[in-house]
């Protein structure tokens, strides 16, 4: 599933429902809500910080065996990834919770970013429904 979304808050609900639908259709029933929230947080970061020149956010979902992969990219200003990933955010911090939620919900998260944009690659393993 591939979607290009306008860089606006109104896109988040549409993106979340698309991710949930894709995940459930591919058997990721227990993971769907987690994956959708992680995707929403990554998209929200673009809206709040990246300001892509083409006003566009790219969302891609792939079902690969027992894992679901979500990639979110933009052509915005980028940021220093080392400052936000794998760094514990104090509970009362004013920002940084979005990345923390993504890392907590997903099994693997890789973020690459430079002046030409950012790619967030996220994976979640399938857990059998008990």
């Amino acid at each position, binding site marked *: 599933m591939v979607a290009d979304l306008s860089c606006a808050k109104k896109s988040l609900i549409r993106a979340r429902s698309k991710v949930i639908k894709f995940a459930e259709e591919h058997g990721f029933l227990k993971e769907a809500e987690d994956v959708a*929230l992680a995707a*929403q947080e990554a998209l929200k970061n673009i809206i709040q910080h990246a300001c892509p020149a083409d006003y566009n956010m790219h969302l891609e979902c792939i079902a690969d065996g027992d894992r679901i992969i979500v990639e979110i990219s933009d052509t915005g200003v980028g940021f220093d990834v080392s400052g936000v990933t794998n760094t514990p955010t104090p*509970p009362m911090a004013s920002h940084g919770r979005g990345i923390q939620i993504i890392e907590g919900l997903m099994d693997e998260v890789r973020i690459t970013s430079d002046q030409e944009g950012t790619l967030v690659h996220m994976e979640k393993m399938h857990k059998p429904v008990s």
Partner: protein
Amino acid sequence: MEIEVEEKEGYQVVSPVGELDIYTVPLFRKVVLRLEGDRRHDLILDLSRVTFIDSSGMGSLIEIFQKVQSAGGDIAYVVANPRILKVFKLVDLDEVFRIYPNLGRALQSVGVTGGYVDEEFFSDNT
């Protein structure tokens, strides 16, 4: 989103219904912070009917917590939905906030007892 506000023996019980996220946080903040105003208020945020929360929603809860604390007020939270509690735990707010599984427990904890019967509480102890 609907937000219900009820006073119980000095505590304002604020109960948002629906999703607490980037879309609804402005309304939620407006209602709660206007309620808080310049006066000290004790609050119970009953999130038992919140169906979804994102980092913006968590941010609003922290802002309200800080406002109430700085005014010398008391604040407690009701979180019944395991999905919502999971997000609290992801950002370690379960270690900072006083969280109860239902409104009855929260009211009992803060000392509000007037006529409120927590059936689940009593059934747990029979």
